[in-house]
């Protein structure tokens, strides 16, 4: 019986993501990062309501970034056997084995961190996240503002689109060369900022009216309870954390 990602307590998910990030930051061996990546894939596959396709789909913004990182860093870092060289004036730009390996390491690191974050983001509701944060000690107001910000992103995107429509309809060019794009900034920015400010006022009034400012103790509609899967995840997180300490102590 596979567990449900979305039913996992956000605290256990957070507990897992933290050592992943720590390890991802200090790991210096490609093998180590691949192993870490493997652990994340295993967690994703072991659960039932997140498909690999959805998860990889969330990482699609990286499909342009990763090749770029690989290409650039292969040139910026050097070491070991030279595979190709290109003289540019007084400088000799080289692609070396060491450079390639380092760039792969950098790219992998980014992927590991991003994939863990994607897993968390795809399977955790804003309200659960808010509740989880409050339970681990984050002041409720802060946690709430965090979850509210998540709600705002799609709203702001819609508003941006609507403004873009209004301006394009009057001849604004949103594509084209750098000069055209610079000129298009003002007619986009001004209404957008005005819209955000207006929203801010309205939101502030709305929160006041809904008793956001009350000093009394808060209760919560959301109940968070640990399940067996959460305890397993906590154990896994603990193991990763120990590995992290080991790496710190004895090197990667």
């Amino acid at each position, binding site marked *: 019986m596979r567990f449900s990602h979305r039913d996992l307590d956000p605290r256990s998910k957070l507990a897992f993501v933290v050592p992943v990030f720590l390890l991802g930051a200090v790991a210096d061996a490609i093998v180590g990062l691949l192993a870490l990546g493997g652990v994340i894939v295993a967690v994703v596959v072991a659960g039932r309501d997140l498909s690999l396709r959805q998860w990889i789909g969330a990482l699609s913004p990286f499909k342009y970034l990763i090749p770029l990182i690989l290409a650039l860093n292969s040139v910026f870092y050097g070491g070991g056997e030279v595979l190709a060289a290109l003289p540019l004036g007084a400088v000799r730009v080289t692609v070396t084995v060491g450079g390639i390996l380092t760039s792969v390491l950098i790219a992998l690191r980014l992927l590991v961190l991003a994939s863990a974050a994607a897993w968390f983001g795809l399977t955790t509701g804003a309200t659960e996240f808010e509740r989880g944060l409050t339970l681990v000690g984050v002041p409720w107001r802060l946690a709430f503002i965090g979850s509210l910000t998540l*709600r705002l992103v799609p709203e702001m995107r819609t508003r941006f689109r609507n403004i873009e429509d209004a301006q394009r309809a009057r001849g604004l060019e949103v594509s084209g060369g750098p000069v055209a794009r610079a000129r298009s900034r003002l007619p986009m920015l001004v209404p957008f900022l005005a819209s955000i400010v207006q929203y801010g006022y309205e939101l502030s009034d*709305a929160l*006041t*009216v*809904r008793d*956001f400012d009350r000093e009394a103790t808060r209760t919560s509609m959301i109940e968070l309870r640990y399940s067996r899967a959460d305890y397993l995840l906590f154990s896994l997180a603990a193991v990763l954390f120990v590995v992290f300490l080991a790496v710190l102590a004895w090197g990667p």
Partner: protein
Amino acid sequence: MPVLEAESLSVRTADGTGLLEDVDLAVHEDETVLLCGGPGTGKSLLAKALTGVLHRRENLTVDGSVERDGEVGLVFQHPEVQLVRRNVRRDVAFGLENRGVDREAMRTRIERHAARLDATGLLDRNVDELSRGETTLVAILGVLVTDPDVLVLDEPLGPLDGYNVGLVLDAIDDLRSRGTSVVVAEHDLRDLLGRGDRVVLLDDGRVSDRGDPRSLAPALRETGVKLPFPTELALERGARGTEVPITTDD
């Protein structure tokens, strides 16, 4: 004893421009008051001032007093902003959470109020998927569960089509049947004129007239408020006072 009373209420901007001047308004129990006036006359602002929301704004100065002998709830002109959680049930619970109501009581209250508004089907939906009328309904629900004595609605009908206006009117009727006082700032009175006990007319930030809907109909027509067709027709023919119908059924 009014549940809500404003005395000499004035609102000015930072540079001294008067938006509301010397407004006196009392709302009693089980009463429906209509705040009307042309564009820019301050009815929206008055609606907000009655709930005390304006006191936190740094760019506005509020003078005079608003006495509240009970809880006052507000439904905004753009109710989507008022919905702070993704899931409807959880959003409706927000006000109750802030008041420290325990979980079981929250659940019961939400189910009970939703049933009365025929909105139980909305509770498990996402706030982003709702129609405009449903959004207004959920905003009303979110305020209702806190059991206010007065509900203030700021121009709720504008962007709503016929069907959605019906949803909101049903909610208002339900409130009125329960004895909750309702204050509505609106310029479309086609359905509200007959539901009002009193009308307060604003002009340039001041109260220019007040009284029962029938006697105020001519003045309302002057200011550009939308009236029921039979009302307009009667006024066009020169009818006055008790001869003037205030609903489409009269």
